[in-house]
């Protein structure tokens, strides 16, 4: 095969959208993906914009990074709007997300949060019980109010992934299954994989939890960590839940897909079996996560859970890592920050534009890799 101008490592949502964007610019693109533990094939399809309480609680030191990124999340959901318009349908619904409060303290927390988010341009509002009653009659009686973020939404990631892969193929992107083990920079980039070796003028590393290892020899200490997470799905019910549901204090996301199935997740842990094996489901997560969902939305308690799964999320420092590698400028790193499926399309496109020296519409300086220089 002719040498690609651009080789992308990692075929999740970030790599896929980078490939599409680069191919649209006219580049010859190869996408090499190990196809193990992609967050993209395991995720819940929530389009997150407001600050996730789970994240603020788990990683308080990273919360300022996420808050600084709020405008990026707004851009990211608009990127999804554009993708849906050109390549959809992905069963996308943007009716907003509700973050629930069960007591006055939680509601006060949401009020402060909403003010800070409004300052960053988010469309947020605090709803009292009466207002909730009108849009979400299936909520538990203990819910006293909620923050509604109208920018949020949901989609079916399976539908989106399939369509975007087809788009990449139709644009001539060559999709290769392999795991890259090393990069060597010279007059071009030489990559060694488990089954083949490759050369390219430029490389985008969109390998999520695998990114840190790939760049560690290139003077970058990128602390990309694999985080195994748990998900549940029920049998279908009549359409009734339009919003993405979260909680002010507890870890949960709940939404209804177009199929009528309810997807319950929100960051409950799974058991890692190493980065190259699928994580194992934990009883405590299944029980805790589903029981919480039933308590918040009693209307679903008659439904049966038909499947659980576990997938690999990636965390760094809460903020997207996007930029050229100092000293190895042929290499670009593109790892989205928290809620990476929401950010993936935008981060992927920006990485492709960086590779093509196309002036972007977002200032990426805040996401520079300089903060990880070894």
């Amino acid at each position, binding site marked *: 095969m002719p040498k690609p101008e651009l080789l992308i490592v990692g075929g999740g949502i970030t790599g896929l959208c980078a490939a599409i964007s680069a191919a649209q610019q006219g580049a010859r693109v190869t996408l090499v993906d190990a196809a193990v533990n992609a967050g993209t094939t395991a995720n819940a399809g929530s389009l997150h914009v407001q600050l996730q309480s789970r994240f603020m609680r788990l990683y308080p030191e990273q919360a300022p990074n996420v808050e600084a990124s709020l405008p990026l999340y707004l851009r990211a959901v608009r990127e999804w709007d554009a993708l849906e318009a050109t390549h959809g349908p992905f069963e996308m619904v943007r009716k907003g997300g509700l973050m629930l409060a069960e007591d006055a303290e939680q509601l006060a927390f949401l009020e402060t949060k909403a003010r800070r988010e409004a300052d960053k341009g988010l469309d947020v509002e605090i709803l009292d019980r009466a207002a909730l009653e009108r849009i979400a009659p299936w909520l538990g009686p203990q819910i006293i109010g909620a923050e509604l973020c109208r920018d949020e939404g949901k989609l079916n990631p399976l539908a989106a992934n399939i369509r975007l892969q087809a788009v990449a193929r139709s644009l001539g992107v060559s999709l290769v299954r392999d795991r890259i083990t090393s990069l060597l920079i010279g007059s071009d980039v030489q990559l060694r994989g488990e089954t083949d070796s490759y050369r390219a003028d430029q490389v985008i590393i969109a390998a999520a939890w695998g990114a840190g290892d790939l760049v560690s020899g290139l003077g970058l200490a990128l602390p990309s960590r694999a985080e195994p997470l748990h998900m549940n799905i029920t049998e279908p019910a009549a359409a009734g839940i339009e919003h993405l549901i979260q909680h002010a204090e507890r870890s949960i996301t709940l939404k209804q897909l177009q199929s009528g199935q309810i997807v319950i997740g929100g960051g409950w842990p799974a058991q890692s079996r190493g980065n190259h094996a699928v994580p194992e489901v934990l009883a405590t997560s*299944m029980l805790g996560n589903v029981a919480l969902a039933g308590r918040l939305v009693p209307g679903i308690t008659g439904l049966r859970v038909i499947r659980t799964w576990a997938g690999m999320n990636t965390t760094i420092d809460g903020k997207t890592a996007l930029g050229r590698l100092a000293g190895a400028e042929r290499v670009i790193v593109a790892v989205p920050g928290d809620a990476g499926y929401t950010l993936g399309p935008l981060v992927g496109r920006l990485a492709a534009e960086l590779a093509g020296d196309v002036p972007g519409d977002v200032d990426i300086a805040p996401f520079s890799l300089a903060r990880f220089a070894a």
Partner: protein
Amino acid sequence: MMSDPVTFFFEGEALSARNGQSLAAALTDAGQRVFRHTGKGSPRGVFCGMGVCQDCLVSVDGQPNQRACMTLARDGALVQRQVARPELESKADFDGKPAQPLAARELTPDVLVIGGGAGGLNAAAVAASAGASVLVLDERKVAGGQYFKQPAADAPLLDAQQSDGADLLAAAREAGAELLGGVEIWGAFAGPLLYAVAPDGTPLVLRPKQLIVATGAYERPCMVPGWTLPGVMTTGAAQTLWRSYRSLPGRRVAVCGSGPLNLQVALELARGGAEVRLVAESAPSPLKRPASAMALLLAGPKLALAGSGMLLGLRRAGVPVHYDTGLAAIAANTDGSLRATFRRNGREETTELDALCMNDGFEPQNEILRLLGADMHYDPAFGHLRCTRTDSLSTSVDGVYAVGDCCGLGGAPAAAAEGRIAGAAAAAACGFATHEDLWSSRQALAGARRFQKRLWALHDPAPRNLDTLPDDTLICRCEEVTLGQFRNGMADDADHIGTVKRVTRVGMGCCQGRYCGPVAARLVANATGRSLTDHSYFAPRVPIKPVSIGTLMATQEALDAKA
């Protein structure tokens, strides 16, 4: 005879049932075959008769998604066809509903046996008589497993097979084993730690010292266009209707696929009064293979004679047995009756039927074993996984034994012998010596395995080649995915069954991939040229069977209260 007939309501119409009958049986007696419609509007009814396919779902007293084959017809019950998407309850429905969860029971028996069939009951009897505390859990309300399935409620025993089963149940009880029926096991985790729910809704948390898995097998269907129509059911479903509930699947019946079960059930149904129009066996006639038939006779004269007695009985009952004959397609008439097309030597023949029974081999119910990480290997002769076991039938997982058909088809006598061996081993591991004559059990096991090998040489236990099936054949009943869609889904990226699942939705429905999974695994293996292993199948995940959110909440609350 059966006392206290009950009256229940189906779609508002009063129907009567015999005491102890399942809803599925009572509805079948009433001529009702359509229990629900799928999301795409296709009618569905009883298919597996054993709680696996989830196609018999109805709503009972407002509670949706109840399996009619596993639910008793209760007096006064309001039964409704299941709608594809039940309404969510709103505040008005759940306000004021007492949400008092039943206290969870934590059980720590020496030996926990899952599955109360030939294998499980023998294991329980041996382990309990050695002095171990033994608990047997079974999902069905009717005890005995497949071979020994008992009549419901107070119906009399049908034959020696049922009275042997009754004796075995009595022996297990007398030895001190506790037998619980109607228990839904939804979780199996390392430990072993298991979660279940008792019929009254009590959450069960089980931490046994030793675990014996004896969950049996379910049936492989003949996947042809029309195999999901109401009135088409597995041979075992028809057998359960008759043996446990004295209901016939229909008046005009045919039985197809391959194997001795089809012959036995055809005869049972004929004797029960059904007009059995034919038995279609895909293997050639044993008369064409005298050497194999003789080998079978030598391996087990008694059972082989019983088998030829069955053939004789069928002839006397006027039931033709067509060899080299396969099912080609099924269509529905406007009145709901069926038109089945069979193919024999390239010629097609159509038969009008009320019910069509199919059994084209067996698939082991190995989900608990796979969840616990027990080592499996593929058996190409039977086309399914077998669990790797030691001589004492322990698996690769510490403290976990596996016996009977859940390890790969072996038949009831082998399951019984394996149960006795594993029961003794599990009791010994808890410090209880047995007086069990293990030498006899091992001899019996070796004999039963020899017989099975010869028996299946006369049938056709390997899965069918799907290459010639038309694209519009459904392979996933639940998500209504056709073979054509699956083939397309493999075209881009056939690397793994999980990838094709995400593209086609195959295996994402309520039966959790039990019917499409084995087929999908084979199709992907063919396409990639890789041989089949445990990893070729859908990854094992909880819940083992669909479990209601309410049950999970009750379990969590009970655990919280204890903590």
